[in-house]
């Protein structure tokens, strides 16, 4: 674990893309073992400009445009990590990380375990993920469940600009491999944040909005939708809390259970397909742990169990305010 030194940038307004870029730059300044590698991360600054300016500042040895091969990128990162570097890998889009899954599942996730702790791999795999950006097929997969299902990987996903910075710094500092899922559709949203403020270590959920009726549990791209739904719910007479998990692994069961026990009603929301999704795990766990406090089954609002739609139809697939409120209405409110 390297220490996260925070540069005193002060309060600023910026996008999530800028916060991620700042996090990479600060991490590279603070620790010479941090190396960025991926497709188009150099002169272009990545297709989303998250690595903008890094090659100019640190040189191509620290921010490397690789040949076009995801398995090669991640496999090379494994070797670099074995030699003491701290690689941060960029996958260009969610579905283009799939060629690297062999390296990820068979080596990155397991190396610590296989070597009885002798060879941990401090690799961060950044994956822009999810839909809502009008992308054609293979550009919008919500792929978190594949990663969360693989023991040995931390799965982190920010929903705010400040968290994008803080969680990426923590992920890079982690001695375990982290799949860092960046919600593409939140890249360009602006807000005020202070890099010096820091975040808690990964694995802590945060209540984004207090409430008294029920809790919406979500993460990453669906979090703003939940906040919008909570706002809209006021007109229906519901005061909804919104819990941001921030990481699926570790899953902050203590915080989630505390909220669910106090409110008795919960809806889990994510855009990934429902069957075998993260929401299924969360709902099952909450039911097991909080059964006697529940006034209604924990419900899920998710994407349909279909391949990601073409852009003109994607809004039918993505959970929106109405679907969330419909679920809230089904939480067995007695008259």
């Amino acid at each position: 674990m390297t220490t996260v030194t925070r540069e005193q940038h002060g309060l600023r307004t910026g996008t999530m893309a800028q916060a991620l870029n700042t996090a990479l730059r600060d991490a590279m300044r603070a620790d010479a073992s941090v190396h960025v590698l991926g497709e188009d991360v150099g002169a272009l600054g990545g297709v989303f400009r998250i690595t903008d300016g890094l090659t100019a500042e640190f040189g191509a040895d620290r921010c490397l445009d690789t040949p076009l091969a995801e398995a090669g990128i991640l496999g090379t990162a494994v070797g670099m990590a074995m030699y003491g570097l701290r690689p941060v890998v960029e996958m260009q889009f969610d579905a283009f990380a799939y060629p690297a899954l062999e390296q990820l599942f068979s080596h990155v996730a397991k190396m610590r375990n296989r070597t009885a702790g002798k060879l941990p791999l401090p690799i961060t795999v950044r994956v822009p993920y999810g839909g809502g950006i009008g992308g054609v097929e293979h550009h919008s997969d919500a792929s978190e469940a594949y990663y969360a299902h693989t023991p040995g990987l931390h799965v982190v996903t920010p929903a705010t600009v400040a968290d994008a910075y803080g969680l990426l710094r923590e992920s890079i500092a982690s001695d375990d491999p982290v799949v860092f899922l960046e919600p593409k559709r939140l890249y360009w949203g602006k807000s005020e944040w202070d890099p010096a403020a820091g975040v808690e270590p990964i694995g802590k959920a945060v209540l984004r909005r207090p409430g008294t009726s029920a809790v919406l549990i979500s993460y990453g791209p669906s979090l703003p939708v939940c906040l919008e739904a909570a706002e809209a719910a006021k007109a229906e007479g519901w005061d909804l809390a919104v819990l941001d998990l921030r990481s699926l692994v570790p899953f902050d069961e203590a915080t989630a259970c505390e909220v669910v026990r106090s409110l008795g009603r919960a809806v889990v929301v994510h855009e990934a397909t429902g069957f075998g999704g993260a929401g299924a795990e969360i709902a099952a766990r909450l039911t097991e742990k909080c059964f006697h406090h529940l006034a209604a089954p924990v419900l899920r609002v998710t994407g349909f169990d279909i391949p990601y739609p073409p852009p003109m139809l994607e809004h039918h697939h993505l959970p929106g305010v109405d679907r969330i409120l419909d679920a809230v209405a089904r939480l067995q409110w007695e008259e």
Partner: protein
Amino acid sequence: MTVLDHRDQADPDLVPGWLPGATAPRTDPAPLLPDAEPLRVLGTPAADKADPGLLRELYRRLVAGRRYNQQATTLTKQGRLAVYPASTGQEACQIAAALALREDDWLFPSYRDTLAVVARGVDPLQALTLLRGNAHTGYDPRATRTAPLCTPLATQVPHAVGLAHAARLAGDDTVALALLGDGGTSEGDFHEGLNFAAVLHAPVVFLVQNNGYAISVPLTRQSAAPTLAHKAVGYGMPGRLVDGNDAAAVHQVLTEAVERARNGGGPTLVEALTYRVEAHTNADDATRYRQADEVAAWQAHDPIRLLADALRERDLLDDQLVAEAAEEAEALAARMRAEFHADPDLDPMSLFAHVYAEPTQQLREQAAQLAAELAAEAEVHTR
């Protein structure tokens, strides 16, 4: 005749902070392939010998293809297409290669190869469905013997091998042609596909359109091989290098490779040297990674101009052909505007229709949920 070779111009010590410098076409065929009779159509004036009818057809199609690229790019700016990866400057590779196929052969295109798909006989508007964004594939692959446009790089390569293998098992003399880019040759699927093809002696041809870049990454950072065609050697198949902007040369090399495959000669890897004149897609900013003079140098080696010059030299380019080609191109552009300026018919229920042969119980429930939501919405609208 000119060839792109970044390697001569690349900074020899790739110091940190190295950025691709300006590169230009150069006049020198690439190094020899270890092949008894390396066919390097570079420098060979293929158009001198080509059939006049073929040359004239290539000319019309290239002119229409260029206009198609322009119109599609304009449509992205107007929000009528979701994205368009233009093949401006690569029209000769795509069209001449597709024309080397017989109707019952198969094409395996990548996302940039809409012109090859159109040259196969797919309706030009249907070829754009994926990029418009109302459905994933706009044509019937089986009816057109054209696989869906493939986005995950190089994954179509083993598909082409498998289809060719199956055709051979069936006793058919069908050939498969897989198209990909220079960047795609770095993916594992490319290597696995080529190895399978050679081991199975499959009737398949691989055409790498080396357009100098994979988004921002120049060829020098992609491969250290003398040429991409050299990669064939390690798998035990012939490699061919061709000027991809010389339509007649591409047609000749591809025809030879396809016929070789058809006659039991096994696979061939062809590298066509060309250039991506536009940005990677409308969403890309190419000024971040390449110089304008590099583009200008390649525009002087434009495939339509080269073909027109060759036609003129043989007295095959009369005013009538020029006028007809321009007219056809404009008619095509007008058709594209008419179709794409109108909103497509969208069927949200189609999302559930083709996930499985029979929808699962859960999918039927989810479809019913969406149908109910849409009905409720419609009711609100009519009120």
